[in-house]
């Protein structure tokens, strides 16, 4: 006991306590109870209750006996478990599911009425049921609605009728009953409910009020503070989620397409196997028959208006084989296009693979190996040969964006090919896949031998090939070729300077290239120049050759192609705005469509016109020139110019030479022109652009006045400007260029401010102070009498306003 006197150390919870059994401790009695050293832990009970008799008894019993004695338990009120009607009450059985029960939170609220009928109600129900049928549930729903609709104030009978969808008699009966019962009811409601707190705090001490809301005043303020930020966050969240959804959908689509591709590939392989086509011959054959283009080693992308009437979605020559190819090569190059299916379709239709099957298979394999799971199915492969301009282009080849609401058409297959030499392919294909001498418009130069193909979205891709002639070819000035191209080929004028175009024919003499040129001239060597320069911005669309497909050697064909060009130009003017041009190549497509339409009609006429009227040709050339000019200066103008002349020309040559001389610049629309116009109009996006182009062309023409040749050619473009530029007017009148154009221009031009500016510039150049461009435009607008222009008029007016500003 003496040990009691010393103070034990505090109990350390982290210190190991050795465990002794009773038998190990002979001197256990010497142990000191630690009660003094270790603070007694509270029991955790209320003090008064701790002393309760039964508890103490139980505790002491436990202390003594180490287990509960029956008599020492704490007594509690009795409970009985003999409800004998239990089985009748709870009918049916419930089988324990194998799985753990999981409950869906929203399944919990069912629409069942909270009100439960009692026997009193049952009596009423029985009574009512003599006259009509009313089910208990129906009754409960009625009472439930009445109860829930009324607070302290009972609902009136009228309200009850609105509330209950029963017949009046029943409502009346139930309502009366309910009112009576409610009055006799001691509680606030026939549906017993826990008493709710009142906001005034008057119920704070009411023992029957339960489950009060936990409101913390501080918190509300905090919340309010965050409101705006959190709202924005929510918005952002929502946006991101929807984006995620879009992405996922696209992925889904992509994966489906991939699967399809795989299946098709398999199918092809199987078919080939069945056919015994182990060497790829059959495949090749098929491919050749279907394909019109080749793949070349060095693809260069040309953004051009290779827009064809063929809708992208409906490839003309769907072919499995081509599919693969595209997938492996082309597809990857063009990542820009978000719409993969389209792209694929394009590719499939237009890109025949020259290679033999095995090669194709390889590519397929590659594709699947490396790209199948890629986010971007078509990762952009930098084109091996990229023009410096292209590389410098800040927007790069990707500048093109499809626009919503625009239709993109696949390049025309029939036009898509040119030709030539140096094919690794079989002789068969030689014609098809020949490389030809090619000139680019914007980096105005000859790039030597190349072949063109059309990529997704109608862009032209140049595959270059090196030959021993390269050094010589580099010296070729595209202008030298212009003459040839115009005459012999359908080549467009890529030159920026109209005069060069005009003189191009004459320039052919240059010595260093004479041989080549002569070859070209004699059509021994094909040479290609992009016709339409609409796109040719250094930024996005240089190097585009308008009409890739015009490989035909014969003059006739070329003429036809010219016509096409014109039409296409028209289309362009209608569809593409220069300003927007970089972003809106799509419009070019539309123009092409128009061209094609016209082409069919007017090929002959054009041809004849060309032959008969050299001037006309010249003019066409000049038109092209003007386009190029525009592109160089402002890409759009060119296209506009082109477009203007075309319809005018064709018409002029044949019918309209009589000349609607548009003295005022207001040209009476000829029938054809009207049609064109209407078509243009149909192209929704086009008008603004075309207007711009027109204006620009005007400017050119004015500058070009000095050169007679140009003058002749220019007039066509000018007519459009007539209103603005008197000078131009005179020249233009001859060619009758285009009432159509004018109309188009006016309407389209109105919207684009740049066009207006250009017009002003042109006007200044013309030194015709009288007419301000704005007025000219407005006048034009005024003069448009065609019903279609209605919208345009509005636009024109607005433009005027803009100009003023």
């Amino acid at each position, binding site marked *: 006991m003496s040990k009691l006197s010393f103070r034990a150390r505090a109990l350390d919870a982290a210190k190991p306590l050795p465990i002794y059994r009773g038998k190990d401790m002979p001197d256990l009695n010497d142990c000191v109870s630690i009660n003094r050293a270790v603070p007694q832990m509270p029991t955790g009970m*209320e003090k008064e209750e701790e002393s309760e008799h039964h*508890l103490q008894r139980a505790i002491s019993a436990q202390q003594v006996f180490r287990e509960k004695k029956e008599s020492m338990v*704490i007594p509690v009120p009795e409970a009985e478990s003999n409800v004998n009607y239990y089985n009748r009450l709870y009918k049916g059985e*419930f089988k324990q599911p194998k799985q753990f029960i999981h409950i869906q939170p929203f399944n919990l609220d069912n629409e069942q009425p909270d009100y439960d009928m009692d026997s009193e109600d049952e009596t009423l129900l029985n009574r009512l049921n003599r006259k009509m049928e009313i089910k208990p549930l129906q009754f409960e729903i009625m009472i439930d609605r009445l109860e829930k609709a009324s607070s302290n104030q009972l609902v009136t009978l009228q309200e009850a009728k609105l509330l209950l969808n029963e017949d009046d008699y029943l409502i009346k009966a139930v309502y009366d009953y309910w009112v009576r019962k409610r009055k006799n009811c001691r509680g606030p409601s026939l549906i017993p409910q826990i008493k709710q707190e009142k906001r005034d705090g008057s119920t704070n001490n009411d*023992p029957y009020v339960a489950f009060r809301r936990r409101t913390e005043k501080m918190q509300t303020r905090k919340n309010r503070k965050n409101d705006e930020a959190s709202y924005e966050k929510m918005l952002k969240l929502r946006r991101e989620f929807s984006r995620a959804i879009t992405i996922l959908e696209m992925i889904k689509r992509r994966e489906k397409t991939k699967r399809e591709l795989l299946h098709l590939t398999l199918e092809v392989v199987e078919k080939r196997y069945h056919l015994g086509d182990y060497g790829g011959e059959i495949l090749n054959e098929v491919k050749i028959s279907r394909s019109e283009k080749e793949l070349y080693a060095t693809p260069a992308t040309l953004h051009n208006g290779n827009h064809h009437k063929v809708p992208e979605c409906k490839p003309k020559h769907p072919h499995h084989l081509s599919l693969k190819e595209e997938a492996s090569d082309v597809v990857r190059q063009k990542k820009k296009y978000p719409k993969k299916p389209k792209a694929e379709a394009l590719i499939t239709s237009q890109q025949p693979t020259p290679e033999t099957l095995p090669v194709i298979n390889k590519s397929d394999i590659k594709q699947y190996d490396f790209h199948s799971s890629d986010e971007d199915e078509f990762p952009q492969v930098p084109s091996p040969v990229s023009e410096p301009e292209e590389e410098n282009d800040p927007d790069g080849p990707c500048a093109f964006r499809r626009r919503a609401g625009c239709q993109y058409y696949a390049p025309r297959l029939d036009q898509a090919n040119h030709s030539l030499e140096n094919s690794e392919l079989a002789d068969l294909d030689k014609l098809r896949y020949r490389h030809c001498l090619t000139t680019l418009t914007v980096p105005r130069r000859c790039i030597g031998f190349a072949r063109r193909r059309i990529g997704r979205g109608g862009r032209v891709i140049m595959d270059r090939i090196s030959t021993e002639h390269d050094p010589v070819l580099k010296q070729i000035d595209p202008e030298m070729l212009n003459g040839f191209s115009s005459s012999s080929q359908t080549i467009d004028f890529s030159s920026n300077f109209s005069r060069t175009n005009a003189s191009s024919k004459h320039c052919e003499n240059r010595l260093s290239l004479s041989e080549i040129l002569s070859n070209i001239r004699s059509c021994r060597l094909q040479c290609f120049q992009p016709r339409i320069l609409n796109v040719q911005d250094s930024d996005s669309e240089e190097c585009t050759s308008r009409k890739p497909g015009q490989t035909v050697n014969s003059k006739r064909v070329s003429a036809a192609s010219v016509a096409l060009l014109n039409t296409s130009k028209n289309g362009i003017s209608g569809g593409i705005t220069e300003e927007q041009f970089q972003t809106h190549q799509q419009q070019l497509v539309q123009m092409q469509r128009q061209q094609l339409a016209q082409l069919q009609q007017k090929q002959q006429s054009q041809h004849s016109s060309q032959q008969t009227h050299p001037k006309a040709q010249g003019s066409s050339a000049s038109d092209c020139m003007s386009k190029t000019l525009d592109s160089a200066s402002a890409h759009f103008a060119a296209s506009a110019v082109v477009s203007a002349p075309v319809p005018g020309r064709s018409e002029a040559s044949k019918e309209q030479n009589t000349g609607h001389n548009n003295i005022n610049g207001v040209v009476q629309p000829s029938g054809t022109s009207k049609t064109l116009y209407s078509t243009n109009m149909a192209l929704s996006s086009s008008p603004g652009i075309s207007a711009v182009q027109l204006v620009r062309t005007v400017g050119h023409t004015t500058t070009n006045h000095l050169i007679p040749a140009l003058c002749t050619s220019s007039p066509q473009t000018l007519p459009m400007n007539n209103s603005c530029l008197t000078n131009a007017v005179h020249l233009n009148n001859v060619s009758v260029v285009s009432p159509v154009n004018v109309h188009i221009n006016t309407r389209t031009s109105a919207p684009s401010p740049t066009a207006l500016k250009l017009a002003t510039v042109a006007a200044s150049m013309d030194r015709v102070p009288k007419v301000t461009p704005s007025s000219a435009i407005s006048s034009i607008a005024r003069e448009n009498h065609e019903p279609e222009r209605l919208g345009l008029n509005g636009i024109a007016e607005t433009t005027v306003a803009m100009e003023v500003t």
Partner: protein
Amino acid sequence: MAEVVSPVPGAGRREPGEVGRARGPPVADPGAALSPQGEIIEGCRLPVLRRNQDNEDEWPLAEILSVKDISGRKLFYVHYIDFNKRLDEWVTHERLDLKKIQFPKKEAKTPTKNGLPGSRPGSPEREVPASTQASGKTLPIPVQITLRFNLPKEREAIPGGEPDQPLSSSSCLQPNHRSTKRKVEVVSPATPVPSETAPASVFPQNGSARRAVAAQPGRKRKSNCLGTDEDSQDSSDGIPSAPRMTGSLVSDRSHDDIVTRMKNIECIELGRHRLKPWYFSPYPQELTTLPVLYLCEFCLKYGRSLKCLQRHLTKCDLRHPPGNEIYRKGTISFFEIDGRKNKSYSQNLCLLAKCFLDHKTLYYDTDPFLFYVMTEYDCKGFHIVGYFSKEKESTEDYNVACILTLPPYQRRGYGKLLIEFSYELSKVEGKTGTPEKPLSDLGLLSYRSYWSQTILEILMGLKSESGERPQITINEISEITSIKKEDVISTLQYLNLINYYKGQYILTLSEDIVDGHERAMLKRLLRIDSKCLHFTPKDWSKRGKW
């Protein structure tokens, strides 16, 4: 100093002892007070016959909490002193030993007929010690109590139209003053009121205290007394009227109202069982007069009659608690119910549980709690056996808020199973936990028993390594069992296992301890199998507000 309610009915005032102690004078039904039974009023103490579990008659001292008159027959609600409230009951006067009756001390002089008794019985014996002890928690309490009492009184007073009102109000301002006390008491004369307010048929016209209290608690005291000083009193007291917002148990006296001190539900039918509630539960007041409250066994919805229950069962297709099953072994399953997502079930469960848990508070909503309901399966469905609630986030390491085994299932090991399960959850969470306080008597016994068995299991399972004596730290025990360190220590103390021997603390397992444990473990057949638990704790702190 608690005022003793004088038996004299109708007396305008009484002299309260201590303000702090002031409990509203018991609802003194004039009739009751003057009745032949000898002026038995609320607050009187006298031996009352009671039969103990050994079926022997006892005459423990009891306090009259309320008097009611049913069809001419008086019934007295008695609380047996030093017995748990759950044994309180209505008795007829035959069971009262009037010879030994003690009237509330001071009340004798100042008869107050206030219908509302104080929160605590005004028994003289109790008063004194209470006041003396008051140092600890009692001190603050008195004020509240006064408040409360006043409220009911006022309630009564108003209808009574007694002039005392102003007095009471003024008095209220200074609770500790005698005068105040008196004034407060003064209010009481409202005795007649009860009859006027007397609700309905159930109670005869002479409204008894109970009627007054129980039938009308719904009225807003404040609203009634709005014009009076009640409010000011409230504010002057500066005592928060609302309990703390965390936890589900009330350890202070904020709910120690006469209303809540009395059972209000006679009987509850739940499935096969008929339960006699132990404590007050705030079921809708209009249901408290029913002889039996019918509960749907599965959704726990309450109905007035068997017919209602029948009708309800045609619409309720639940056959298990509406939560996710997270444990199943044999017929025992546990369901987890989110107090925010499934309010109606949670509230119904709380209402039911309150019938058996004295200190449980239903003051606030159930949002911050999870409810783990233990069920036993038979062909009819998953029958609720017990449950415990748990705060989603506890700042004080509580892993259980309320825990209850329904009476029909008590003393069969289910309680320990519930406790064991709660610690299993804590183990999964990687925390130690402790039940929220205060514990009830049964809670304390159960927990102690669980702790003892769990700790002894570990201690006895330790093998000596390499001949050395096995040893273990308290922290280790705590980590293994998830029992909070303090509970480990208290258990070791309680079992007298910790001893100081030769300069260090040791744990000694005496033979009777070991034997007792082994015997107990033999009986403990129901165990939680942690392999059957499919539980992923959630981090509620990241979900904003529960």
